[in-house]
Structures are given as structure tokens and as C-alpha cells.
């Protein structure tokens, strides 16, 4: 063991104010990691970069727009990869989590316009087992830890060694890295038939695809297959962000997004669903796109979660500040936002926003209708939790094009009231008419018999509910909300929560999980705790599944029908990127064996075959999640934490 001297030496000179930073006596000098220490493709050469710079769109980029530390040629060399795909080879698969955009340089690619069956795309979907099947498997466990059938270990699609990336203008015999070499390559069967049937759209040289899914950290909306002589440039997210520093490139990307996607995204927002097409076109024209925070928020997560709530709030980028005039309606496109309010000398969280949520609606409506007599400033601040991507619709545009088409029931109560009873300006009504209106208003204000009493009591009860309760049954506004946001549990769509005041620690949930997974439980009853609630370490099937970023084969994917994050084990290469990427440590890598207990070994390296495992919500079972069904005391729930009402309702029911 090394003998490390503790404490400062007794002879250290004591200086009242150090003249400049001096390193401590006991220090270890290391090389500070830099951007591009690990390029996307180590085989990109300067010749490749020069070739790219000679072609559009890079030839048109203004290199002076890039900082000296991150020059344009550096971006191309380190954040991009050149590919030459064979005809019929799948470039991106529908549903795969996007991590890079692709630019067609030569040849063409075909975008498949209809959804393809999962097995054609190399995924084996989990089929629901029948009752007898489920019972039979339950009664005949293999008795082997992590047993898999051979077809679950290797893919049943046509797989080849990935064809070498042929670098243009480079004769160097480049060897692939181990990771890249192990990536299986998928060829679409009957690709020519699809093209003939007109079920594809041709993407030609100069066209970019996958950039929207990449920027929004969402899944690819369609499968793209290589055509003849397809040479493509893969640009990873970090590079794409840098390329956007060039105004022309950013404008081109934004135009592409506006042209193809913005209207679709706006239409998906419930508030805007009745807006006519003509109005929507104007909204699309005026909407601004903005991003806040850091995309790779999971990298900072372990540090920021240890900060106090006040420090954490302060560290989050501000999107809109309380007390300022409202200028835009803010729509969350992706990521999470924290809504907070000044309280005393700090800020307290009042809500959190996720995809599709809006901010500033009440203030805008009240300001536009003049319900408050004067423009209402923002009542809350909005901050980016980790990463936040927003759409900003200017107030004037919103008032003109959108507000008239919003249902009153969808507006905040105060705003709806203001819409219903706008303040009376000088009207042309006669004194008799005005008196009549006033009388009607008084009549409206008169409560029904007993109503006032009950309403008073209800409102006082509601106010009382806001106080933190020793039983923890109230959804107290600050503590629990801040705990959820601080630990990023608001990312969870199927978070597992245990009410410790009801849980008898019988572990029936874990036993049930083990029973339905051939003796291998997919979670343990451990996790962070807030008062009576324990947030168990089980896959939450996140809204922003950062575990999917970097999955080289797309084995980790989101099920379109259920929204669950699934692992196609047959194409999982066991690289462990997902397990390292999951900020909640909810994915485990396990070595697999055959049902007789013989470990699977790689034929080339003789290393054990490992697979990523996690909670699958018992999707293959007729019973649904066994953990929640097995709890005899209503203590365990799988719940969507991306919004607060489900948890609020669940807590309220526990009285």
C-alpha cells in the first residue's frame, strides 16, 4: 500500500493572500482530456477532409465562423465518418435512437415510406405468451443463471462482417476498430421490390437525413436503405451542433426542419390542434427554435444531483425569468424544464415541464385579453433541467393565429375567465343595458345555498393539503418535486415507486420478478428514498432514454406501440455502452449460458458472450408487470413521472 502523507507539512509558509494560484505540494499531474481525443473515426485523413471541403455544402461554409479551438476541418475530421454502403444495406432503421445525421455525398439512398415488420429489420419482437405456455415455462425453470436459447444469442437476420469503410481519396489500408468491426450489417431483403412498388423516396447527393431525430434525441421516423454507389457522411450530434455555427448551414437545417417537420410537431401539441392550416403556416414562419443546457446531461448528472436544490436551480440555464415581460409562448420540444418561483431568498420548484408542455400561456392570455388591466409579467421562471429544446411563438403571432382557436377548457382557469368576461372598455351600451349587465354579474356571483360554506371549506382544505404531511400522503409542492427533478426521475415513464409505509418488506415483488424471468430478478428492492417513497432502481423506460445513445446495433430501442425501451438480445453485442450511459444504473451486463449451463463464448476471442439486461415490464407475459401485481399491500406502483398528476393522484388515493 502506498504511504500517502496526510495533511499539510508543518513547515508550510503561511501567506495571508496568495499572490496567484499555487498548486498544492501533494499533486499528481495528468493530461487534461480534450475534445477530439477520441475521434469518431480514427481513420479519417486530411485528404478525406480536403475532399469534403471541396464539395457542397462544406465548400460554402465560412470557416471563420468556427472558433480556433474547434475549426471546421477539425469537425469534419473528428466528428464525421465516411461510409460507402452496398446496395440494399440498411443505413438507419425506423425506431432506432438517432445519434448521427447522414449526408448523401454520392449515389443515392432510398427512404422506405411504409413501416416494415420488426423481423425484417432484424428485431425479434416479444410475443405475448399464452397462458399454458407461461405456466409451463414457470413450472419448468432452467435452473441456470441467465440461460438463453441459441437464437436469443445470435441474430437470425443475414449478417455479414461490416464492409470496410472505404475512404475516398485514400489508399491507406485502414483497419476497423474492434467496436466497428463487431457491428452487424443488415441487408433488406426484397429491397428492389419495394423500390419497384414505389414505396420509397429517393434521397440524392446533397440531401441530409436523420438530423431532426438526432437534434431531438428521438427515434428515426423511417428506415433508409443504401441505393447504388451510396457514399454518405455520418455526422455525429456534437459535430452537427458545431456545423450550425455557420449561419448558412444552420439556416439550411432550420429551413429543412421548418419545411418538413415544424408544422407536424406543432400540430401534435394539443393546444394547437384546432388551428387552421393557413394560420399554422404563419405560426411556422414566426416560430423560433432554441436550445438550452447540455445534451449529454447524463454526464453531469452524478455531480449535479449532489448539489443542494438551491445550488442546482442556480446552476441551471434560464429560459425565461420571473417578473420579465412575456414575449413568447414557449413550447418544450424535447428535454425538461423546471418551473420555479422566487420565494424568500431562494427559488422553489412549482412544476416541471416535458415534451409538448407550454410555458407562459396564462400570462399571455391575460395580457392579450387585458384581464388584469395591464400586461402581466411572468409569474414563474423557466430553467433547463439538463437539456431543453424549445419552440418560441411570439406573443403577437400567438394572439392572432392561435388563441382564437384554443378551447376555453384548455386554458388556465384565470385566462379562461378573462376570455369569458373581458374587462369592459368604454362601450356604446346605454345606461339601462349597462345596469342590466351589472345585475347579471351580481347574480352570477351569488352562491347557491350552502355553496359558499362548502367552497370555503374545500379551499381551506386544499390549502392545508399543501403543507408537508408527516404521513407523506400529500403531494407537497417543493420537497418531492425537487427530489424528483434533482434525481431526474421526471425522465421516468414507468418508474417503480414503493410506499414504505405500506411495504412489509416481504420481497414478493422481487420473487415474482425472478419467477417470471427464469429465476433472474431484473431489479433489487433498493433505491433513493424521499420520506415514505422509495424510488427503486429498475428501468424507468425513460422519456429521454440516454442509454440508447451510442448503442451501435440498435438493439436497445423503443417499442412504438407501448413506448417501452426494449433490448433485442439477439443483436446485442454486449459492448456495455448502454449500461455505462444509464444515469440510474438500471442496466446490467450479464454473461449468458445455454439452458444446460454451458457459457456461450465468442468463437474468435473465446471471451464470454454478454448481454444487457434490465426490466422489460414483463412484456412477454399475459399478466403484465409481475412486480406491481405481486404486491399484496398496494405498496408498489409503476408510474409515469414525466408529469406530476399521476403521482399526485396516487398519493391522494392512499388516505
Amino acid at each position, binding site marked *: 500500500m502506498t504511504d500517502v502523507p496526510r495533511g499539510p507539512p508543518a513547515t508550510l509558509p503561511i501567506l495571508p493572500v496568495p499572490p496567484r494560484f499555487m498548486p498544492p505540494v501533494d499533486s499528481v499531474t495528468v493530461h487534461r482530456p480534450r475534445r477530439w481525443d477520441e475521434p469518431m473515426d480514427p481513420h479519417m485523413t486530411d485528404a478525406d477532409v480536403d475532399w469534403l471541403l471541396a464539395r457542397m455544402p462544406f465548400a460554402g461554409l465560412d470557416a471563420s465562423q468556427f472558433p480556433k479551438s474547434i475549426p471546421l476541418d477539425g469537425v469534419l475530421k473528428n466528428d464525421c465518418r465516411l461510409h460507402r454502403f452496398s446496395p440494399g444495406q440498411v443505413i438507419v432503421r425506423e425506431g432506432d435512437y438517432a445519434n448521427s445525421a447522414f449526408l448523401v455525398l454520392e449515389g443515392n439512398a432510398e427512404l422506405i415510406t411504409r413501416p416494415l415488420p420488426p423481423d425484417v429489420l432484424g428485431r425479434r419482437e416479444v410475443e405475448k405468451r399464452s397462458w399454458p405456455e407461461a405456466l409451463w415455462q*414457470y413450472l419448468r425453470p432452467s435452473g441456470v443463471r441467465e440461460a438463453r436459447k441459441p437464437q436469443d444469442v445470435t441474430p437470425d437476420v443475414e449478417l455479414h462482417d461490416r464492409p470496410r469503410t472505404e475512404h475516398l481519396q485514400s489508399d491507406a489500408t485502414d483497419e476497423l476498430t474492434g467496436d466497428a468491426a463487431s457491428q452487424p450489417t443488415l441487408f433488406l431483403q426484397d429491397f428492389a421490390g419495394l423500390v419497384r412498388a414505389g414505396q420509397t423516396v429517393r434521397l440524392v447527393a446533397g440531401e441530409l437525413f436523420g438530423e431532426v431525430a438526432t437534434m431531438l434525441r428521438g427515434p428515426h421516423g423511417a428506415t433508409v436503405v443504401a441505393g447504388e454507389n451510396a457514399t454518405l457522411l455520418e455526422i455525429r450530434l456534437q459535430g452537427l451542433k458545431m456545423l450550425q455555427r455557420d449561419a448558412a448551414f444552420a439556416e439550411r437545417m432550420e429551413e429543412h426542419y421548418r419545411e418538413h417537420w415544424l408544422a407536424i410537431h406543432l400540430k401534435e401539441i394539443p393546444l394547437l390542434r384546432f388551428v387552421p392550416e393557413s394560420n399554422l403556416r404563419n405560426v411556422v414562419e414566426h416560430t423560433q427554435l432554441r436550445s438550452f443546457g447540455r445534451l449529454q446531461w447524463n454526464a453531469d448528472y452524478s455531480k449535479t444531483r449532489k448539489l443542494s436544490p438551491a445550488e442546482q436551480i442556480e446552476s441551471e440555464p434560464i429560459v425565461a425569468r420571473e417578473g420579465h415581460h412575456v414575449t413568447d409562448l414557449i413550447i418544450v420540444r424535447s428535454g425538461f424544464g423546471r418551473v420555479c418561483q422566487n420565494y424568500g431568498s431562494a427559488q422553489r420548484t412549482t412544476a416541471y415541464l416535458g415534451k409538448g408542455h407550454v410555458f407562459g400561456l396564462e400570462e399571455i392570455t391575460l395580457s392579450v385579453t387585458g384581464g388584469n388591466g395591464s400586461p402581466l409579467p411572468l409569474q414563474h421562471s423557466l430553467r433547463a433541467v439538463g437539456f431543453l429544446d424549445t419552440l418560441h411563438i411570439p406573443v403577437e403571432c400567438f394572439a392572432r393565429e392561435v388563441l382564437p382557436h384554443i378551447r376555453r377548457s384548455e386554458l388556465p382557469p384565470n385566462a379562461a375567465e378573462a376570455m369569458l368576461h373581458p374587462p369592459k372598455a368604454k362601450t356604446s351600451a346605454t345606461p339601462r343595458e349597462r345596469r342590466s349587465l351589472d345585475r347579471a354579474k351580481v347574480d352570477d356571483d*351569488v352562491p347557491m345555498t350552502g355553496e359558499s360554506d362548502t367552497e370555503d371549506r374545500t379551499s381551506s382544505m386544499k390549502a392545508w393539503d399543501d403543507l408537508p404531511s408527516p404521513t407523506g400522503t400529500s403531494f407537497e409542492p417543493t420537497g418531492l418535486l425537487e427530489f424528483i427533478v434533482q434525481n431526474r426521475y421526471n425522465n421516468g415513464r414507468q418508474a417503480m415507486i414503493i410506499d414504505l*409505509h405500506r411495504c412489509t418488506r416481504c420481497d414478493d415483488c422481487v420473487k415474482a420478478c425472478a419467477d417470471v424471468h427464469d429465476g433472474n430478478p431484473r431489479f433489487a428492492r433498493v433505491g433513493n428514498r424521499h420520506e415514505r417513497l422509495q424510488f427503486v432502481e429498475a428501468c424507468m423506460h425513460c422519456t429521454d432514454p440516454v442509454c440508447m445513445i451510442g448503442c451501435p446495433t440498435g438493439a436497445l430501442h423503443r417499442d412504438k406501440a407501448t413506448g417501452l425501451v426494449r433490448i433485442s438480445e439477439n443483436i446485442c453485442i454486449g459492448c456495455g455502452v448502454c449500461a455505462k450511459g444509464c444515469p440510474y444504473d438500471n442496466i446490467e451486463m450479464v454473461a449468458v449460458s445455454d439452458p444446460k449451463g454451458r457459457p456461450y463464448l465468442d468463437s474468435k476471442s473465446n471471451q464470454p458472450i454478454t448481454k444487457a439486461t434490465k426490466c422489460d415490464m414483463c412484456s412477454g407475459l399475459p399478466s403484465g408487470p409481475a412486480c406491481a401485481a405481486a404486491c399484496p399491500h398496494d405498496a408498489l406502483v409503476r408510474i409515469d413521472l414525466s408529469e406530476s398528476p399521476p403521482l399526485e393522484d396516487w398519493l391522494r388515493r392512499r388516505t
Partner: protein
Amino acid sequence: MSLVERRQTGVLSTSQKLKALVATSIHRLSGAGRAYSFRRRRVVASLVVAVALAAVAGLVSIMHSALLHTGVMTGWMLMSCLVMLIMIGIRRRIPVLPLGTMSSWTQVHIYTGVFAIGVFIMHVPAILHGRMIANGYLEGSLSALFWLVSGSGVYGLIASRRLPWRLTNVGEQVRMDQIPWYRQQIAHAVAEEIHNLQNPAAIAVIGEFHRRYLSQYITGKPSLFYLLMPSSVRRRRVLAGLVELNRYLEEEGCRVCGRLAALVRKRDDLDYQYALQLRLRVWVMFHSTTSIVLLVMAIIHGVLAMRFVES
């Protein structure tokens, strides 16, 4: 009522106030208007059981008036209830089939149990004559066993609601199967503290305390009495002993005593968790075993009784 009248009756009459109060109380008590809540579930289930028992009592009374033998009907009811109550154990062991959630089964189990107690009182004539246990060896032991199972069920209901609170309030949440490992870690930490003592006075004073009291407490298992009735008596005595040592120690020795005290507290928390978790598990085992015995005895009783009835 017109608007004018409504304005005039701004002040509510006493009867109206009372009506509103009653309506609000019922509203709150039943949980009506709110989403499905535990309170609402309790109220509805209790009402259903009360109505069912009243119906059975009425039927028994009618049959009794008609000089019919009510024992057969109530006996079959009890037998059905027992089978229903036992079924929860089967459901618990088959998590793969969609047979409903265990929490629904538990609710059915609880209220079927309550219903069974009511029917049992109507079934056993001795109870109506002021005795709790029926006559005869078989019937006597069967009724005693019924009360035992019912009593353990009621205890279990209370324990499964109260003990989790107590477990939650004791520091860290530890899984029962990991408690021996944690105990071992604490014992190692204590041994290391003692081993690292440098000061001769500390070695003498703390060493002796460790030899005489602390090692027994740390390495031993909690007594049966503690498991039955966990209390903080031992912990308080050990902590008081450690505090007492401070006057004989230097500053460093006092710090060691403080760390040992923290380990003692940790160990006591573990023992407390262990005792309560063990109690819950033992209860489940006891209740399920006695239930099976009860079912077997009830079947024997039923067969014999049916032979008697048929003869």
C-alpha cells in the same frame, strides 16, 4: 329559488347548515367525488360485508322459524369462505398468469375473513349460548383453531399496517437477507477501531470494555426476547457505558468512543429491522400453516356432519 330569494337568504338556516355538514361529512368519509381511494374502498367493502351478513342473519332467522336446520347452509358458506381464503396462497405462487393483482386478492381475503367470522358466530350454537368454543373434541379444537386463525389474521392486518411505519422510521432500509452481512461489517469495523488504538490508556479502558461488553453485543445475535419485544434497553446500556468511559480517556480515545457509539446504534437499528421483518415473515408462515390445518379439519368436520345430516 329565485335570485332575489337567494340574496335574501344569504344567512343559512341551521337545518341547511346541518344538511350541508352531513353531506360534506359523507362526501369526505366515503371519498366520493375523488379518485378511487383507500378510504372509499374500506367504506364500500365494509358496507358490502355488513349487508351480506345482515342478509345471512335474516335467512338464518327465517329458516330457524321454519324449523329448518341452518347449520348446513352456514357450514357450506364457511367452507366456501375457507376455500376462497386459501386461494390467495395459490395466487401468490403463480405470478405468471393474469389472475388479478395480489392487492385485490388481499382485499377480498380480508373482507371474506370478516364475513366468515360473522357466519361462524351463526354457525356455532355454543357461541350464541355465551361460550367461545364449541362442545366435543373435534368441534372444540376446530372452533379454537378458527379463532386462532381469525385472531392471527386480525393481528396480521394490524401488523402489516403498523410495522412498515416503524421500519421506515428506523434509518436505512435494509433487506432482511443482507442483515447478517451488515452485522459482520459492523463487527469488522469495531474490531478495526479497537485494533488501531495507540494510546495505552485507551487500549486498557476501551479494550476492557470491548472484551467485557461490546464484543458480546456486536458479535452476538439478538435474544429471543428481543426478537419478540424489541427494545432499546441493551443499546442504551452499552451507550451509557461508552459515555462513562470518556472521563478516563484522552481526546483521541473519546473520538473512538464516539465512533463505537455510532456503530452500536447502527447495529441496534439492524437488530430492530431484523426483529420486525422476522415477525412479519413468521406471521405469514404461522397464518398460512394454521389456515391449511383449519381447512383440513373443516373438511373432516364437514364430511362427518354431512353423514350425520344424511342419516
